[in-house]
């Protein structure tokens, strides 16, 4: 039950003013610009774009500043802003095969055509705090060599050519969109992929990890992980042809998983897929594992009751804005709800005490 009361206005205004002051922090320390956040905290920016479901690095950087670095709050701000904008249309599906790769590795083929390109990675670092970063100084220039030309082929393409991996069904041209219609079950794969790519990184990671630990194991190999830039094309109605509207950075992970076979189908590897805005490889790998786990029915596997196999569980709990909204609302005033509970428990106690007193007297 909700009852409107007044009286908090001044306190709220003052709280928000103090929030702004605290956000700024010690004024003897230089203020951070949005461009600094965009350039120097780029992985945070990427995460906010992916979970906010809006590719706009400047806006994500501003949201991080406004949210004092609280990532879910920043995602919330992006989502709220997004709802105020008209949608001009939908792009052609992006061609990740045409990606200019910053990074491209395969855990399955050492000599993959196109090679193992490490890119700007934390892998193989010693995870020791670098105190040199605490001192100001220029970053070293990265070495350069002759760029590779031509497209970098997908690893799964080679397996597909020999029919060693399942084919991906074509699907419908216009996928369902969970930002435009309420989520209902069963959800098709495009809807699941949309939910996973905007899902909370921590949640998707934990779900993926649970499959690795045995709750719905699916034996994944990272067939390929690639990070890079590609153009986004959309047909412009007033022109009658498609133009490139911009360039985005995405991370793609294709897993090659345990094979299946049946009386009619010879054994084949199966696959999971992750595709996420920005350089977000932990999320992309996690997404591929959870995508694969949720495909059990399509592949005729057993439901072992693992959380990651349960699409209703995964999709209903992956969205951190929904989750935080429902969770945090319980800290807001519930005076009337609680008052009724309080009266109830007083009455029950009084009754119980009276009964006990009567029993003692008898």
């Amino acid at each position, binding site marked *: 039950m909700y009852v409107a009361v007044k009286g908090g206005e001044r306190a709220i205004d003052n709280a928000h003013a103090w929030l702004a002051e605290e956000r700024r922090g010690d004024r003897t320390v230089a203020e951070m610009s949005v461009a600094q956040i965009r350039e120097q905290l780029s992985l945070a920016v990427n995460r906010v774009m992916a979970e906010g*479901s*809006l*590719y*706009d690095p400047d*806006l994500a950087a501003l949201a991080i500043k406004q949210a004092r670095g609280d990532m879910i709050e920043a995602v919330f701000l992006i989502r709220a802003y*997004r709802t105020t*904008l*008209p*949608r*001009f249309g*939908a*792009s052609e*599906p*992006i061609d*990740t095969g045409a990606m*200019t*790769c*910053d*990074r491209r590795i395969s855990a399955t083929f*050492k000599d993959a055509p196109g*090679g*193992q*390109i490490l890119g*700007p990675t934390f892998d193989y670092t010693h995870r020791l705090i670098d105190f040199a970063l605490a001192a100001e100084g220029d970053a070293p220039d*990265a070495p*350069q*060599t*002759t*760029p590779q030309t031509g497209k970098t082929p997908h690893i799964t393409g080679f397996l597909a050519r020999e029919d060693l991996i399942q084919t*991906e069904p074509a*699907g*419908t041209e*216009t*996928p369902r969109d969970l*930002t435009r219609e309420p989520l209902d079950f069963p959800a*098709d*794969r*495009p809807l699941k*992929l*949309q939910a996973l*790519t*905007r899902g909370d990184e921590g949640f998707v990671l934990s779900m993926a990890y649970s499959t690795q630990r045995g709750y719905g194991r699916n034996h994944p190999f990272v067939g390929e992980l690639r990070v890079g830039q590609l*153009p*986004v094309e959309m047909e*412009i109605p*007033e*022109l*009658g042809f498609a*133009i*490139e*509207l*911009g*360039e*985005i950075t*995405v991370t793609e992970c*294709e897993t090659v998983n345990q094979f299946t076979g049946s009386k009619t189908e010879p054994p084949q590897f199966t*696959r999971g*897929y992750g*595709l996420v*805005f920005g350089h977000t490889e932990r999320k992309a790998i996690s997404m591929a594992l959870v995508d694969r786990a949720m495909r059990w029915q399509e592949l005729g596997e057993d439901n072992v009751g693992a959380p990651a196999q349960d699409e209703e569980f995964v999709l209903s709990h992956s969205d951190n804005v929904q989750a935080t909204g429902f969770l945090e609302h319980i800290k807001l005033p519930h005076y009337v709800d609680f008052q009724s509970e309080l009266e109830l428990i007083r009455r029950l106690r009084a009754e119980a005490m009276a009964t006990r007193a009567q029993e003692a007297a008898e």
Partner: protein
Amino acid sequence: MSEIDANTDRKARLSTLAQAPGARLAALWQAFGRTPEHETLRPPEIGTVMVRGRAGAVGAPFNLGEMSVTRCSIRLSDGAVGHGYVQGRDKQAARTAALIDALAEAGEAEALEAAILRPLRDEAAAKRTARAARAAATKVEFFTMVRGEG
């Protein structure tokens, strides 16, 4: 010029303008030194485009998330119509792109190509090459250290 060639040129032009850094586009446009009279058909409008991917890179399309896009349409006094679509939320860049598009349609394509579009394309290519050169330097060159016997 056939319609297909004209579309190809226009597509290339609009694609270049869409991805141009806002400040750079503004500087090149200012240096070009034209402020043509025009009426605004569609004032600069910020919106989004839903970016789609494909399951498994080759399968069913799915909604990956939106990107911000700003668009604007204008008509020059001689009747040529220009459309500008730019990535991000720069309204001025969308109007500038529309003006460049309209002027190119009105016969100034070569001058605009030399003064604005080619520099933008060259700079974008240089930036891409610089990244690719850094990526290439991180390519692993495997060699066999010891091969076990038996």
